[in-house]
């Protein structure tokens, strides 16, 4: 369980994250959604102390993250970057093995873990001795995910993990991501500015604007019971597709209602 309490971050007087509080339950997928510059990355990085908060506190399983060494904390939290952040001087196998090695795992255990991750992420094991630049962007992103998962951390932080990919690659990676058994039990905080992606992957969505939380809740709550005009407006562009996705193909009357609603708004 991750508890964020009243967390604030200012950079030279400019507030990037402004008194934010939320709780993420164990095994939950929590999506931080918002426009560019609203403070999502800053918020995410404060959880594994890549950025130290100006004020407020964060607890993981009741324990304050500020106490204890940041390195130990980070080794227990997987982190996926938008631009992979793979080590260019490490092979794929070595990249995946970074955290297990820091944790002092045995060689054989690391090898087996690496091979099984490669399988799960649908990557041929021939790549293990390649270097990152020899792989495609989509493949590199899969390795980035494998690296974050390598030591089987209970928490996964992901900063626009599919953001840099073309739509087809993105869809296929999202699909594999959803189907990954490993992820079912993990507490995930994922940052995105893509509404469809948020609805696809989130148990709960947290919509942010100018460093503040505007509304946090289940996707349908944000869609059907927006807290204010900003939330309502945020989804308007894609409301029809989102509602269809929410309702599902079986509830015919509701679908008709949504469609009519959509039509009146269009005219």
């Amino acid at each position, binding site marked *: 369980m991750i508890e964020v309490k009243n967390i604030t971050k200012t950079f030279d007087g400019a507030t990037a994250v402004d008194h934010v509080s939320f709780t993420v339950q164990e095994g939950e997928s929590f999506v931080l959604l918002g426009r560019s510059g609203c403070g999502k990355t800053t918020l995410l990085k404060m959880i594994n102390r*890549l950025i130290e908060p100006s004020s407020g506190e964060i607890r993981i399983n009741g324990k304050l993250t500020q106490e204890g060494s940041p*390195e*130990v904390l*980070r080794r227990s939290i997987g*982190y996926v*970057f938008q*631009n992979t*952040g793979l080590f260019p*001087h490490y092979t794929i196998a070595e990249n995946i093995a970074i955290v297990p090695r*820091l944790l002092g795992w045995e060689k054989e255990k690391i090898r087996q873990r690496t091979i099984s991750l490669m399988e799960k992420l649908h990557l041929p094991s021939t790549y293990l001795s390649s270097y990152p630049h020899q792989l495609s962007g989509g493949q590199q992103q899969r390795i980035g995910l494998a690296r974050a998962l390598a030591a089987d951390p209970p928490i996964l932080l992901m900063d626009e993990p599919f953001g840099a990919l073309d739509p087809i690659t993105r869809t296929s990676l999202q699909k594999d991501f959803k189907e990954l058994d490993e992820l079912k039990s993990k507490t995930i905080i994922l940052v995105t500015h893509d509404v469809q992606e948020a609805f696809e992957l989130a148990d709960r969505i947290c919509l942010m604007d100018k460093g503040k939380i505007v509304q946090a809740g289940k996707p349908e709550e944000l869609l059907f019971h927006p807290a204010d005009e900003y939330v309502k407006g945020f989804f308007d562009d894609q409301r029809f597709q989102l509602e269809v996705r929410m309702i599902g193909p079986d509830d015919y009357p509701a679908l008709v209602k949504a469609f009519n609603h959509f039509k009146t708004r269009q005219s």
Partner: protein
Amino acid sequence: MEQAQSLWQFMRQESAKLLQQTFEHIGLTFISLLIAILIGLPLGIYITRHKKAAGSVLGLAGVLQTIPSIALLGFMIPLLGIGPLPAITALFLYALLPIIRNTYTGINGVDPLVKEAAVAMGMTRWQLLFRVELVLAFPVIMAGIRTATVINVGVGTLAAYIAAGGLGEFIFGGIALNNTNMILAGAIPAALLAILLDFLLSLVQKMGRRKRQATLWAMPIVLLVFSSFYVLPLGYSSRLLAGFTPEFMGRSDGDIGLRAVYGLKIRTVVISDAVMYKAAYEKKLDVISGYSTDGRLKTYDLLTLDDDRRIFPPYYAAPVIRKEVLERYKDLGPVLNKLAGRINDSVMTELNYKVEHLGQPPEKCARDFLVQQGLYRDPAPAAEGTIRLGSKIFPEQYILLHMYAMLIRGYMGLQVETKTGLGGTKICFTALLNNKIDMYPEYTGTALLAILQSPKEDVQRLGGHRDSVYQYVKRSFDEKYQLTWLDPIGFNNAYALMMRRSQAQQLGIHSISDLTTYLKKNKR
């Protein structure tokens, strides 16, 4: 072709010295490189963490780089004396900038995303440094080390100036003795060394990163091994320490003669004459090979040891003039000879002292002397004709030249053209022979050994007697070149061994024989 062959012969003949100098050179290069890496690398890393310090650290190292190497060595002497310590320090200072700068730019050039990822994975600062930053910055850092190495091999030749050995001993000895083979025997190995080391390091630089890690560990060991090549260039151990110029070391009327005739066994280092006198004064050296009329003798209160077995041929100075000029102007000979016998060793030393140490213009110094001697006259009414005077580049010759110019103008009213700074003996003499100048002051010893290159038997027969050498030289010049030696001016600017006056008196040493005896009695 003949040149190439005799170079090879020279190198074969001097192979032991060559090998020693090469080893010293490699040793000097690597010791200073090792220290520069030990200090420069951490400093470079430090300023990537403390960017505020970066400007001043890089600026300071940059300033050090711009100090001319000879000057830097000069600054070192009062602080660190002579020998390996100041040489290594100077080389180290030169190597510092490329290493600090490339470490700094190399680490700063590492993709910040990769660094952030490393931190996000839970790497500590040290793990980030050793597993990511240093490995990725490796090619850039190696480029800096390469630059530093090549600089060190080059500047390392100057170590010979301050008694630290290396290939510079041959190079500067060769320049002083006008011995091309000797110059090349030092310069070619030095150049090859630079090229070879640069090439080897370029291989290391391009190395794949798997080998890099191994290299990082192997480097210090290799550096240490090469550093140990440096063994102090000391022949004998003795109470006193001698510093001889590269030229003196290579001459039969120098170090070789001292050993053969006197049996002098003294711990010897090779050093430039630019710093030698000062080093003696500062008690870094006890015995030096100087010139007996050098002004610094007075500046530093040094005593010339009596050459009681006459191994140093006399270097009496006298004007050498073209015969036809002498015949055309009948009065010229007597006028120039007005100076003959007027300037003895101590007077010449005094005059040199005024110019070298007190900074008087040679012209004023010359005039004051003539006035004091009652020889000075204002220019006579202009007469037809021009006399062209030449001189080598050092103060004593400038002073003499101005005296002669004043005499010619004052007594004869002729025009005088002065060509000062005609380099060394070779240039002056060639100019005279080819009718580019009419006259310049020369020394009997130089004429005997360097110009006439007289056979050994002749030199021995003359036995270093002032008059016999003068007569021999005068006769030979007249026969061979139609050049006339006028009367000697009086002083003898010969090689001499010198000691601090106080020390010499305290040890009761007056002559070179005394010195030899003292050293034999007081073996260490």
